[in-house]
């Protein structure tokens, strides 16, 4: 079973409209899984991260229900069947 990404509405333009996409290649860390996602759907990388490679300030990534900022960041473990969710933070909707 591959790793599944849940894609927010704003990024579905880059996944052909799909809200869930699977990535293969047996990733073991979040970093591996993201690399696979970005190589299949290039428009997503620069929307998730800055040009310095940091996850954007108001974007959160969850493995299951856990925000990866508190579970080891990009080195968080993923296994077959892991569900990863990308979401903007509530703090992002300013003005």
């Amino acid at each position: 079973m591959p790793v599944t990404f849940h894609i927010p509405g704003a990024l579905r333009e880059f996944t052909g409209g799909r809200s869930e996409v699977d990535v293969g290649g047996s990733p073991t860390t979040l970093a591996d899984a993201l690399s696979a996602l970005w190589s299949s759907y290039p428009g997503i990388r620069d929307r998730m991260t800055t040009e310095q490679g940091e996850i954007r300030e108001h974007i959160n990534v969850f493995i299951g229900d856990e925000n990866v900022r508190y579970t080891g960041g990009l080195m968080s473990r993923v296994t077959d069947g892991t569900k990863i969710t990308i979401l903007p933070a509530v703090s992002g909707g300013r003005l």
Partner: protein
Amino acid sequence: MASALARAHDRGIVHRDFKSANILVTPEGLVKVLDFGLARQVGAQVFEASTKSFATIESGSSVSGTLPYMAPEIFRGEPADYRSDLWGLGVVLYELASGRLPFEGRTGFEISSAILRELPTPLGPPVPPGLWSVIQRCLAKEPTQRYQRAGEVQAALEAVQSGAIAAPEPDRVAPPKTTILHNVRHVRVRKGDFLLLVGTTKGAFILKSNLQRSRWEAGGPYFHGYSVYALAYDNRKGRHRIWASTQNYWGTWLRSSDDYGKSWTTPQDQTIRFPADTGLSLKNIWQITLGGSDQPDVMYCGVEPAALFVTNDDGATWSLVRGLFDHPHRPRWMPGNGGLALHTVVLDPSDRQRMYVAISSGGVYRTTDGGATWTAQNRGIRAINMPNKYPEFGQCVHKIVLHPAHPERLLLQNHWGLYRSDDYAENWKDIANGVPSDFGFAMIMHPRNPECAYIVPVESDEFRCTCDGRMRVYRTRNAGGSWEPLLRGLPQKGAYETVLRDALSADTLDPLGIYVGTRSGQLFGSRDEGKSWGRILEGLPPVLCVRSVLVEDTAADLPGTTTTRFVPASTRSTRATSKTKTRRRKK
């Protein structure tokens, strides 16, 4: 270390004495952070004690004081918070990476002064650029510019370690997609139409009229939910292209439309990007300035953090203007209320080598060699925020304008202060004669009359609203010798309006049309050079910028218009509220 701090911060504990001497590596390789709870014992006492001497790490003796690890806000008398610990973490990381402290000095005064004012010497290879950028962000002078949580530093360091995303791939630029906007109200544009492009905090609108400019149709919102700080219309080389800078939590994107908003380019990879060695990332594009008609593929973008980017291939690739970025003043520019932004780019139409930029807060800079070298040009401009009221640079300039037929003449709206230069910005003269306030943001020059300019004064720094609740545009017809209020048709009661720096705009018609958008979402226009005004639209999100377009070539048979499901625009000036839905165009 970052994870220990993250755990402490999660429990509401600020360490306040984070330094290498407090970090222990156990024989098992476990990193422990010591001395939690000493927070209240540090502070003033340590400050005194630590002025004696500072042994370096290399000498093997322990660092007795904590002065070299103290964050600048502590010297400014502000309370320490989590972010002060992140500064300390930045100092320790610098020490670990280089074997020396980022801020050194022989006396406590020298050290504290370096912490407050100097930038650390950059760390090149073998220190990975990703690590250097993490350190730089920890060592930002302003706590708001640092990471806000230790968990973020931890995640960033792990990213560097994994190498997965810390090594950006600037060379990879996937071609942009095209997005056709359905279910957005569009305006159908023909030759001879007159348009207003309006950028707001939540999207852009296109307003259409004819040369009479009395009835308006509204199209939009484009870029639903994105702030549009800059818009430009490119009619060079027979184009009819709208450029827009769009920003929200998914980043800042430069997009363009060749069919008046029906379809837009959607870049896959960010094209305006700070190189890895700068450690910076793009926050916003404040200004899009087109090169002259003899340079039809040249464009400039003024961005935040303050820098200038240029393209020579019609926006396909962009590069950082290093001559300005490497200016020795840059580390001393300070962010204004809107961040540290290069918000205005002015080209001299008579000399392609000469251009000006305005930086908040850095002041005016000029190049006379096409961008290779830059000089501060602020002589005579008062800086209320500095102890020396007339410094070489550091002024918070809000807008500069240049008269195309008299390029030696520039006018300037400062954060307090109105100025004129008649010598290419060599010297500035105060022209705040008869205005209710010399604070303001917006300023435009009459395209034909070099004696005539318009501003919208606001009351003060603290109260950035039109004076006395009366909305008045002020005009000078003697280059600042005197100013007169223009108010007929503008609200004169309870009108606490703010007009931002690019929300005042003029067209090129005769008599001149002037347009002004407010933060309360109203748009006013005058067709008689400002004598009388009418409300064009209300109920918009806060207006950031307004640009006018006279459609001179035919646009009736543009590609794409027939394949788009067209939602007819109302003939009345109503707010467009339909939801944006995007779909990728099949190639």
